[in-house]
Each structure stands twice: as structure tokens, then as C-alpha cells.
């Protein structure tokens, strides 16, 4: 049978840490960061090509880079990191051994093999079919094979996560219910299984088709099922990064959920409804009824949006409650002013929370409205939206939590703490610029995925307004800033992971600004704080969010109403 499991005891939290899980978390984080660096580089080159005066890449390289950018960051970076989050939320948080470390290494090998295969295939130049690889455009068979291998690896990793949960329950390594963060991770893993199954359903036939064994793949069917993977996998990200929000608030501030029931309900709504999101990509496609579109695009009356809106109150609410507990009780916003803004884990999470809600969440709901999609579909508004969700939301959150994982799990000190302190801000400003200016250019009609929007080679070029070109220029400038933030992150993580001072050698408590010094177990009040809950600052913030949401929503209906009538 398996070798005996080795544990160490974490000096900061007192948690038992399975060394096998620790090694796997490290491997997955390192792989994630490598693909982030690679994909980020491709992303920067795409943004510089969109900048009309720079127009960096030649024609074929642009589409190649755009394809590789999507695969490397949206798939590889995020899912490798999510596997690390799953192992952390199961083995570490539940004080348990990882179910099957060897199998987890096999999963890791499959994912690495798949990623490398996809990258090589794309770099060979015959598979510039974009991340979405819509049929009947055909990539080389290895493109689909690489994706399938990666998905199988990720599926095995999910299985390992579920297995660990079972073992933890059997061996009674925790009392009562699993922690909220683990609950969120379970949400992510359940959605991941649905997602990866959808991917298999469509990618395996497409792979066979690319080799000539199947004659025809229907393009509408492909899109419907592909997006059951493509969009739903973004909901894995949401579940994972919201879990990380709660985790960081807990580790940094000792924050407790306002109410376990409300937060878990919000995650549960994700499980029930997020899978309907494939419809977001089919709102202006032929052959689908409006009833189907309305029901699915709204996650059955916006019930998954309801989940996110609950988190929009409860996450800042837990942070406010925790900081007030620490005495920052003056007025409406002392807690916010005196929050640990110098701690990159906190600043990253809070910035991510704000940008995900205001930029990503609102634009997503508006764009996903059946009729409004007509004036946004496939314009640059779409990448503008999802850079706010996936980059400002997921990526920035994962970056933030890395600064906690390095000392707690990888047992190294962050090598350049000052670099880390500014990194989250640089990256956040860069990403908010990218998102806003791409959305702006999209409302002026600039299409996504176009090498040359001046259309200088076209027989009948369309002249876009000058403001659109200004937006593309600004997008390029902010992309440089985001890339700088990315480099600051990658350098720091790689240096700390491999050459950072071992924390075991110097077992001092985390260096941090004063409010953080006190370690964190049970710092904040009790559950069911129904009588004591006092979060006026959060109520104001959520009020601003809600008003912005309503206004922006109806402004876009007004824009739609000015468009030529369609029936």
C-alpha cells in the first residue's frame, strides 16, 4: 500500500500539513506562474498590435499569439493554480492527508504534457483557431489532443480533491461542517466536473473530426457544448476566487463570515445555476428561441447573479466587521482607511473585489441581456468585460494569495516584500485600464480578434471614429503597465520559491503592518452575530454598487433603443 504519510505542523496556524500535498501545491503553483508569464507575454504583444501606431506583430503571428494567449492564461495559469487551491482547501484546511498523491502527480504530468503539446502545436502555426476553435475551422489534431489530456489531468485532480474530502470525513480530521473556504472549493470542483465533461463531449469528436474519422461537426452544436465548458469554466474561477477572498480575509484579518448560511447559500446558487451560461455566447446566433435565450442567459431569473451579489455584501462585510473588531470603529470608513493596504494579499483581494464587481460583474450582466447583446456581441467590449472578471477578478486574487502561500505552504519568505507591496496596485491599475478601454472601443464598434482595425488592405475599409483609436492606444499603454505588474509578480514568486530564505530557518511571525501582527485563530466575534452586526461602510459601498448597476443597465437599454429596428 501507500507509503506512510508525512506531516509537519505549521508554526503559524497550528495546522497539520501533508508534505505530499505541500509538494503538489508547489508544483502546481510553479507551473501556473510559468504559463502566466508565457501567456502574459503573448497578451502584451496582442495589445501592442492593437495599438494602431505600434502595430507590433505581423499578421500570422497576431492570430497565433492571440490563440496562445487565451490558452496559456485562461486555461493553464488559472487551472494549475486552481488545482493548488483545491489541494490547499482539502488537505491543508481539513488537516488531512491528500487522498492519492501518486495519482495527483499523474494528473500534474498529464496537465503539463497537455499544455506543452497545445503550445507546441500552436507555435507550429497551423492551429491559429483562437481559444474557442469554432468549427468548421480546423486545427491540427494535437491541438485538441493537448486540450483533452489537460482536461483529463484536471479531472483526476478534482477526483483527488473529492477523495481527500471523503478521507477527512472518515478520519474525522475536522469537527462538524467543512470550512466555508472548502465549501467554496467544493463548488468550484463540482462545476469543474460539469465543465470538463462538456469539454470531453465536444472536444473528443472534434479531435476525431480533425483526423478525418468524422465528416461533420455542426457549428451551432459545437458552440453550445463548447461554451458549456468555456463559460462554465469561468464559473470555476469565480467560485475559486471568491473562496480565496474569504480565505485571505480570514488569514490576514481573522475575519469570520457574517453568516455561514448566507455565504454558503450564495455558493450553492452557483452550483445550481451557473452552468446555463453557455447561452451568453449564443444570443445573436441562429436557430435558438428567445425563450431559451432569456431563461438561460439570466441563469433562470438571475439566480447565480444573486449568488454573486450576496458575496458582494458578505465579503466586504466580513472585512469591515473584522477591522471594527480590531478597534477601527470611528465613523463610516475608518476601517477602510486603516485597512492593511501595505499587505499585498489584502490589497490584491480588495482591489479584485471592487474591480470584479464594478467592471466585470455589471458589464457581464448587461452584455448577457438578450437584446443588448446585439450591440456588443464580438466587439472588443467582450474581452474588456472578461479581462475585468478573469484578470482583475481571478488572476489578481490568485496573485494576492500567492504572497500568503509562499510563507505558509512553500515555507519561504517573500524575497522582495517591497516589490510585492506595489505589485498588486500596478497590476490592478493596468488591468482596469485594459478593461475599460477595450469596453469603450467595443461600444464604438471595434471588433475583437482583428489584426488591423484600420483595414488598410480591405477593398471597402470602414473608418472607425478617432475616439476608438485613442481607446486602443490607451489600452496598449495600460497593457504595458499590467505586464509590468505581471513581471513584478513572476520574478518575486520564482525568486522566493527557489531562492527565498526558508521560514523554518528563521521562525519569526509574519512581518506585516501593525494590525496584522496578531495571529489569527478566532480573532473575531461569534457566529450568528444577528444582534451585533454593524457594517455601515459596507452598506454604503454596496449601495453605490447597486445604483451604478441599475443606471448602467438602463443606459444600455437606451443605447439599444436607438439602433435600427429588428424583428
Amino acid at each position, binding site marked *: 500500500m501507500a507509503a506512510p504519510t508525512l506531516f509537519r505542523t505549521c508554526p503559524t496556524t497550528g495546522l497539520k500539513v501533508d508534505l505530499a500535498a505541500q509538494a503538489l501545491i508547489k508544483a502546481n503553483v510553479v507551473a501556473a506562474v510559468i504559463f502566466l508569464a508565457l501567456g502574459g507575454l503573448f497578451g502584451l504583444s496582442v495589445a501592442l498590435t492593437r495599438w494602431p501606431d505600434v502595430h507590433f506583430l505581423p499578421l500570422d503571428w497576431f492570430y497565433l499569439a492571440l490563440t496562445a494567449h487565451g490558452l496559456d492564461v485562461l486555461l493553464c495559469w488559472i487551472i494549475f493554480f486552481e488545482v493548488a487551491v483545491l489541494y490547499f482547501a482539502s488537505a491543508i484546511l481539513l488537516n488531512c492527508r491528500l487522498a492519492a498523491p501518486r495519482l495527483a502527480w499523474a494528473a500534474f504530468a498529464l496537465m503539463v504534457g497537455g499544455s506543452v503539446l497545445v503550445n507546441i502545436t500552436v507555435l507550429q502555426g497551423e492551429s491559429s483557431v483562437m481559444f474557442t476553435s469554432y468549427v468548421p475551422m480546423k486545427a491540427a489534431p494535437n491541438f485538441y489532443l493537448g486540450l483533452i489530456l489537460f482536461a483529463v489531468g484536471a479531472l483526476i485532480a478534482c477526483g483527488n480533491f473529492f477523495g481527500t474530502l471523503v478521507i477527512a470525513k472518515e478520519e474525522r480530521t475536522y469537527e462538524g461542517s467543512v470550512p466555508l473556504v472548502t465549501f467554496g472549493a467544493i463548488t468550484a470542483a463540482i462545476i469543474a466536473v460539469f465543465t470538463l465533461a462538456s469539454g470531453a463531449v465536444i472536444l473528443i469528436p472534434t479531435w476525431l473530426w480533425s483526423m478525418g474519422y468524422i465528416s461533420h461537426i455542426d457549428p451551432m452544436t459545437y458552440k453550445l457544448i463548447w461554451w458549456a465548458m468555456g463559460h462554465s469554466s469561468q464559473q470555476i474561477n469565480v467560485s475559486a476566487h471568491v473562496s480565496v477572498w474569504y480565505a485571505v480575509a480570514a488569514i490576514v484579518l481573522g475575519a469570520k463570515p457574517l453568516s455561514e448560511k448566507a455565504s454558503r447559500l450564495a455558493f450553492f446558487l452557483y452550483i445550481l445555476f451557473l452552468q446555463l451560461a453557455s447561452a451568453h455566447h449564443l444570443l445573436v446566433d441562429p436557430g435558438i428561441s428567445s425563450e431559451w435565450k432569456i431563461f438561460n442567459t439570466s441563469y433562470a431569473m438571475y439566480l447565480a447573479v444573486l449568488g454573486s451579489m450576496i458575496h458582494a455584501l458578505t465579503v466586504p462585510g466580513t472585512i469591515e466587521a473584522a477591522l471594527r473588531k480590531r478597534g477601527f470603529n470611528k465613523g463610516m470608513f475608518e476601517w477602510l482607511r486603516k485597512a492593511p493596504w501595505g499587505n499585498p494579499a489584502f490589497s490584491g483581494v480588495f482591489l479584485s473585489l471592487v474591480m470584479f464587481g464594478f467592471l466585470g460583474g455589471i458589464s457581464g450582466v448587461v452584455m448577457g441581456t438578450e437584446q443588448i447583446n446585439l450591440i456588443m456581441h464580438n466587439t472588443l467590449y467582450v474581452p474588456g468585460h472578461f479581462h475585468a472578471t478573469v484578470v482583475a477578478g481571478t488572476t489578481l486574487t490568485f496573485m494576492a494569495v500567492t504572497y500568503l502561500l509562499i510563507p505558509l505552504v512553500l515555507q519561504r519568505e517573500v524575497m522582495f516584500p517591497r516589490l510585492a507591496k506595489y505589485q498588486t496596485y500596478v497590476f490592478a491599475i493596468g488591468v482596469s485600464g485594459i478593461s475599460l478601454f477595450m469596453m469603450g472601443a467595443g461600444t464604438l464598434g471595434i471588433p475583437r480578434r*482583428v489584426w488591423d482595425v484600420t483595414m488598410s488592405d480591405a477593398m471597402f475599409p470602414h473608418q472607425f471614429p478617432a475616439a476608438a483609436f485613442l481607446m486602443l492606444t490607451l489600452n496598449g499603454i495600460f497593457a504595458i503597465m499590467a505586464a509590468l505588474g505581471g513581471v513584478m509578480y513572476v520574478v518575486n514568486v520564482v525568486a522566493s520559491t527557489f531562492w527565498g530564505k526558508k521560514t523554518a530557518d528563521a521562525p519569526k511571525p509574519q512581518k506585516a503592518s501593525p494590525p496584522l501582527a496578531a495571529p489569527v485563530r478566532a480573532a473575531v466575534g461569534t457566529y450568528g452575530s444577528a444582534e451585533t452586526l454593524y457594517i455601515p461602510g459596507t452598506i454604503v459601498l454596496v449601495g453605490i454598487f447597486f445604483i451604478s448597476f441599475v443606471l448602467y443597465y438602463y443606459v444600455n437599454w437606451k443605447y439599444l433603443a436607438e439602433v435600427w429596428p429588428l424583428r
Partner: protein
Amino acid sequence: MAISSPANRLWWKEPIHRVELTWIIIAFLWGLVMFFTMVYWHAVGDQNLANTTYKTTPEAYLAKADAMAQKFKVREEFGIPVVRPPPGSDVYLVARIWQWWPILELEKGQSYRMHLSAMDYQHGFSLQPVNINIQVHPGYEHVFTMTPTESGQFGIICNEYCGLGHHTMASRMYVVDRNQ
């Protein structure tokens, strides 16, 4: 904390605080409002994309477009026919690498039954600067009624990636006043 098991094992029996409950109710109601706004727009709004669709083949569709172009051609631009079909009639637009065919000339304020289909890959019909965007699939003939409300020259560009010539896939649409 969120990273440890709930202190109260019976956490589901705890009350949800008034603040949270109020927000959950507001958010739920707002979801209903947004949901029914979409439904409402189908009743009163003018911009609702029809879902009428026929299965077709590139050959069959091209034949119909060709017949229309021959019948209503008024002139040529760069070898591409400019077609002025009568108001209310069926108008066929062909999407193929890397061209929209033919060029349409429509009358302002008149309605036309637009047909869209692709010959090869997926394409994206994007009418600029109006900013109407519709996905075009091969094998599917999407039919909807469109009413131009302003006259002038408009651009039709492709906004779904369709190969290396994608950025050259642009055409025009003319909208003229009634008696021009």
C-alpha cells in the same frame, strides 16, 4: 473563520441578519426586474432579433442570393454587384472568406427580410457605425426583418475570426431616401 469549521455546528439554524436578508431580497427582486425587462422588450421594444432559421447548404443559399443579385442589380463596385431589392422583399447576404456579397442598397424607413448565411467558416455580421452584431453560421439561414432608420453609407465588417484575411472582410451598405 472561513478557513476553519463553523464554530456553531448547527450553523444552519442561525438567523440571517436583517442587513444581509434585506440585501438578498433586494438583489433577488432586481434579478426579477432584469428578467422581466427582457420579456417586456419583446412586447414593446423595436430591437428583438428574430430566431427564424432554416437549415441550408452553401450551394442552395448561394443560388438564392445569386438570383436576387441578378434580378435587382443596379451597378457594380470593384466587380461586386450593388443590389437594390424592393422594400419588403427577401434580401440575401452571403458571408464567405473574405467578402460580404453582394453590396446592398436599401431605402430608409422600409423593412426588409434579411437572410444571413456563411459559405465556409463562421463569420460575424457587424453593421457600423450602427453597431448591430449578428453571428453567421454555415449551414444555417438566419432570417430577420430590419428597418434602416437613417440614410447614408454604412460599413459591414466581419467580427468573427475567419482566417488570415479576416481584417479585409468588409463591405458597404447604402441606405437611400425614398425617391432617390
